[in-house]
Structure formats: structure tokens, C-alpha cells
């Protein structure tokens, strides 16, 4: 049982590295989609002992939004703005992977500092959650394309979701749904913004965003 959880969690780590390594936006989108499905699986596995309607609802919502809705939406935007690869990011792909590893180590350290009270689903849960989050931030920091940044945001979001799924027991379904909804709207708004950016700047390269400064 625990082995399955662990392996899923590790799979998430792998998806993180995929996100870090791939330059093609399409691949990034696929990566997020993959994470979305994995999260659904993780949700099921962690609550396998009592699969209430509540859990099912969450699973459907999570997979539906994170695994299907976002990727489709992002794909559409991707097609509107015909950019296909991340051209020269601030930090190269190989270095990115190394940094990802460093992030993983840091997360392990933080996890060690935070002894989880009560029954633990997996010792890996918290470190992975953190590292996924950091991966997301790292994408935002190191990539130039607005779309990549959105994907980074999603990755971070996923990391937090992993955390919520694995570590938190007492939590209200409504809040979970509300959160998912909010994220949905957020990504939607960002998509619109990207659309406008593409229109105004003939590119989605946020590197051009430097006219506002002191």
C-alpha cells in the first residue's frame, strides 16, 4: 500500500525534472497534465481506506481541472500565440536540473525540521511537496515565456496540492473546491493576460517587461 503511495510521489518528482528539462512548451503542458492525473491517483491512494463521495468529488474536480481543463486551455493559448519553445532561458536546462536536485535536498532538510504529527502517509510526502513547489517557482524565475511562468505557477500549485492531500486530514470539501475554483479562475485570467500580451508585444516574452522600474 505505502509502496504505491511512495512510487506515485516519486513519479511526481520525475515529472518535476521533466518540467525542468524540457524546452518545448507543449512538453511542459503535457508535464502539468501528467501531474494533474498523478495527483488524482495520489488522492485515491491516500484515502483508499474510506472512499466517500467527498473523496470522489475531489478526485473528479482535481483531475478534471488540473489534468484536463488546464492542459486544454493552455494548449489553446499555445496555438493562438504560435510560440513553441522556450528560447534561451535565463538558466540553462542542465543547470536547471542540478538546481532542481538542490531544491529537493533543501526540501528534505526542511521536511526533517518539520516532524509531522500523527500518522504519516509517506515520509517523502512533505519534501516532495516542497520540492514541487520550489520547482514551480524556479520555472517562473528562470524562464522568459509568460506561458512557462503560468505553468510554473501551476506546478507550485500542484506541490501545495500534494501537501494538502498527503498531510492534511481535517479539511472542508468546500474549501478544497473553492481553492480549485480560484486557481481555475486565476489561470483563466492569466491566459487572457497572455493573449493581450501577445497582441501588444507580438511575443509572450516577459523579458520585454522592463519599462516600469526606478
Amino acid at each position, binding site marked *: 500500500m505505502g509502496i504505491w503511495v511512495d512510487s506515485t510521489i516519486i513519479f511526481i518528482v520525475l515529472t518535476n525534472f521533466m518540467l525542468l528539462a524540457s524546452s518545448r512548451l507543449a512538453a511542459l503542458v503535457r508535464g502539468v497534465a501528467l501531474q494533474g492525473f498523478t495527483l488524482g491517483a495520489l488522492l485515491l491512494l491516500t484515502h483508499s481506506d474510506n472512499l466517500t463521495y467527498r473523496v470522489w468529488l475531489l478526485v473528479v474536480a482535481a483531475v478534471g481541472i488540473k489534468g484536463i481543463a488546464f492542459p486544454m486551455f493552455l494548449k489553446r493559448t499555445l496555438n493562438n500565440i504560435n510560440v513553441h519553445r522556450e528560447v534561451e532561458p535565463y538558466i540553462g536546462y542542465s543547470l536547471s536540473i542540478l538546481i532542481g536536485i538542490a531544491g529537493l535536498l533543501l526540501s528534505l532538510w526542511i521536511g526533517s*525540521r*518539520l*516532524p*509531522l*504529527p*500523527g500518522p504519516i502517509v509517506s515520509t517523502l510526502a512533505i519534501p516532495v511537496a516542497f520540492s514541487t*513547489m520550489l520547482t*514551480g*517557482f524556479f520555472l*517562473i524565475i528562470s524562464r522568459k515565456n*509568460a506561458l512557462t*511562468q503560468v505553468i510554473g*505557477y501551476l506546478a*507550485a*500549485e500542484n506541490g*501545495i496540492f500534494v*501537501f*494538502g492531500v498527503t*498531510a*492534511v*486530514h*481535517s*479539511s*472542508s470539501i468546500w*474549501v478544497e473546491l*473553492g*481553492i480549485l475554483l*480560484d486557481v481555475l*479562475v*486565476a489561470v483563466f*485570467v*492569466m491566459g487572457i*493576460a497572455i493573449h*493581450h*500580451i501577445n497582441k*501588444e*508585444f507580438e511575443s509572450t516574452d*516577459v523579458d520585454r*517587461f522592463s*519599462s*516600469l522600474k*526606478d
Partner: protein
Amino acid sequence: MVLLGLIFIPVVMGLLALVLRHDASRRLLLPVTAVIHSALTASAWFDAPGPVWGGWLLLDGLGLLFLSITSALFLVASFYAVGYLGKEDRGQRQDFQEGVIFSNAPEAAFVACLLFFLASMTLVTLCQHFGLLWVGVEATTLASAPLIYFHRHRRSLEATWKYLMICSVGIALALMGYLLLAIAVPETPGTGVPMVVSELMRLGTSLHTVWLKAAFIFFLVGYGTKMGLAPLHTWLPDAHSESPSVVSALLSGALLNCAFLAILRPLQVLSAAGEGPFGRELLVFFGLLSMAVAAIFILGQEDYKRMLAYSSVEHMGIISLGVGIGGGAAFGAMLHAVNHSFVKGMLFMVTGNILAAYKTKNTRKVQGMLRLIPVTGVLWVLGFLAITGSPPFGPFLSEFTVLKGMLDTGHTTAAVMYLLLLAIIFIGMTSVVLKMSQGAPSEAHQSMASREIYATVIPPALLAVAVTVLGVYVPLPLQALLHNAASLLGGS
């Protein structure tokens, strides 16, 4: 019921705004909603409305204070907005800064978003449940992003994107904080504990300290981004300088406070768990840091809207400093929240008029306001004196109280830095403001300046009066409320 009304009336009105076709009637929605909203708020002063949704929504002292600020400011802003939208010429026109052609976003969206913005902020002030609180704060971001992109040109778009991205990231962290907080709650047999402030405070010291601290750090960084604590403030000057003045007024005057409220909630729990000093120390640190960073950028600032934005960073710093010091300073901080919102709201509205008259945001190109647009000029000077904490205006009293709190609790170094930074910021702002208001305006400006219209002059003037009154007279009920709020934070 009142609480639900406070939240949903603006929402309904917003939806209505989307369907209405006729401009005038749509604009009319703003003051109407504002009046209703503030009336409801006022009623809450007299008989406290009961909790809703099993205590998830509840109006305590803090909530009432920030709700009142938001509501009052929105009331004034709504009237200003009507005048503002009336003055705005629609359709294609040239941007004076880069010369590109741009047009406005559809007005329906603008009005609707303003109303949604109000609703979301109201939600933040009302919630006691941390999850819901997070939803509320995120909602404010989403509702306000389109407002910043009202003038559809590159700079505003850039500002919007930064706002959206940075705040979303920050708020994602806050979500993490929420989960950590949930972990901090000890396992209880049967149903889990609802994540409501009062409940968690009841648990008190039985919460897991480490997780609580971690949670607070995440909340602080997350909501701090939204609140504009340095070095997380980076979105703030861009958004404030590029958005329409009425929006800047609301962002600075209301939104930042709401974000701060979202930090205060976990602080309450932290204090109840006996870890108050941990949180306060961080607040003091970030408070001083914010003041320092603000000082850096206010000195020799060439864009007056950015200057005001940085001044907001400064004052958020002062407020969190006050709360961090606690005791009488907490009271001062609460009072300062009120004063700052009014002054800053007024100042941003004034910048709208300056922009309309001079068609530039560059302080070097603005001169002789007192001659060209006298009322605005007077308000500008008055607001400057107020914001820099000169008597007889409100901020003086609050900043004085904060200082007293610091000295009384023996935070001498902090007090010295506080005074030093205030002095530097004062010098920086004087040089800018005086240059703008005094002297004789250039012929070019004299020719193109349109005369001031009441709709855009009266609202800030009202705020000015309020600030002046608060400087010489703090009504007892308000003092009672402030004391109540401060006591919720463990202050006096």
C-alpha cells in the same frame, strides 16, 4: 443576514453592470451600491450582526474596523469614479508617455470588476475561516487585475502581469500556510476542528508550535506580498502608477489593509498559542525594512504616483511595526490604518486630477499647481503634510502613538530608526511636492488645462476634511473600536 448582504449585493450589482447597456445607469450602480454597502456597515456599528455559515463569517472588532475603512473609502471613490468615467474620453487616443495609440477596456467590465473587488474585500474582512480567507484574498487579486488594465497600453499590461504573477505566487504560499496551519491542529477523535480563528484560539497552546510558526511564516510572506511589505512589494509601484487613479486609491487605501488583516488573523492564533513574540518580531523587522526601502525610492522619485505607491509601502511598514511592537503601538497602528487609507485615497484621487491637468506623471514637468488648479493644489499640499505626519492631521496622532508605544516598551533603536526614516522620507517628499505646487505654471499647461470639475474635487476634499478632523478629534466610539481591535491583537 447583514453579512451576506454586504458580500452579495455588490456581486449582484456587478452582474447587473455586465448586462446593463446604458452607460449613465451603469455608472449609477457604483454610488448606489456604495451607499447601500456603507449603510449596512454603519448598521453593524449599532447592533453587531450575528455569525453566518457556522461562524465562518463573523464581524469582530478587527473586521468591523477594516470593513468600515473599505466601505467608507469605496463610498467616496464611487462618486469620484462617476466623475472620472465621465471625464475619460473613449475610443482611440494617444498615450502621453510613449505616444502609442490606446483605448480603454469596456466600461461594463470596469464597473463590474470594481463591484466584485468591493465584494471580495468585504469577504476578507468578514471571514473567520482561514480557507475562506484565502479564497477571499485571491478573489481580490483576480477582481482587481482587470481594473489595472483599464487603459489598454503596454505599461498597464506589464503592470497587470506583474501584479497577477507576483500576487498569485505569494498567495500560493499563503495557501501552503493554510495547510501547515491545518497540520498544526492536534488530532482530535471524531470530526476535525474547523479552521476558524476562534476555534484555533480556543485550542491555544495545544497547537503544534513548529508547524504554527512555519504556517505563520508562509502567511506572512504570502499575504505580505499582497500587502506590500518589502522586499515583496515589487508589484506595488507599477500597479499603482499605471492603474486609473480611482483604482490606485482603492488598492492603496483598502486592499493593502485587507491583506494585512489576513496576516493579523494567524497572528491572533499565534498569540493565543503563546508564540506571539515570534510573529511580532517578524512584523517589526519587515516594518522597518519596508520603511527603509520606501525611503530609498521616495528620495529623488520622478513619478508622483510611484512616490505615493512607495509611501504606501512605508505606511504599511509603520502599521505592521506598530502591531509588532504591540501595546499602545497596536492601537496606534489601527488608528494609522484608518488615517493612511483616507489620506492615501485622497492623494491618489488628487493625482488623477493632476494627471488630467498636466498630462504627465513626471514631477519635473509639473509646476504651479496652486495657480493652475487651486483646489487640487491645496489638497495636494494638505495631503502631503498629512501623510508625512504633521499636525493637525490624523497621521500625526497615530504615528505619535506608535512612537510612544515603541519608547514606552524600550524599543529605542527601533524608535531611532523609525524617526530617521520618517525624516528622510519627509525630506524626499517635500522637495517633490513643493516644486509641483509652488511657482508659476508654464504657458503650455496654462493653455491646455481644463478647469476642475466638482465630481473629481469634492470627494478628495471630503476625505481631507475627515483627515483633518481625525487630527484634532478622535470620536470615542472609534477609539473604543480601535481599542477593541488592538486588544484582539494582544495590544491594549
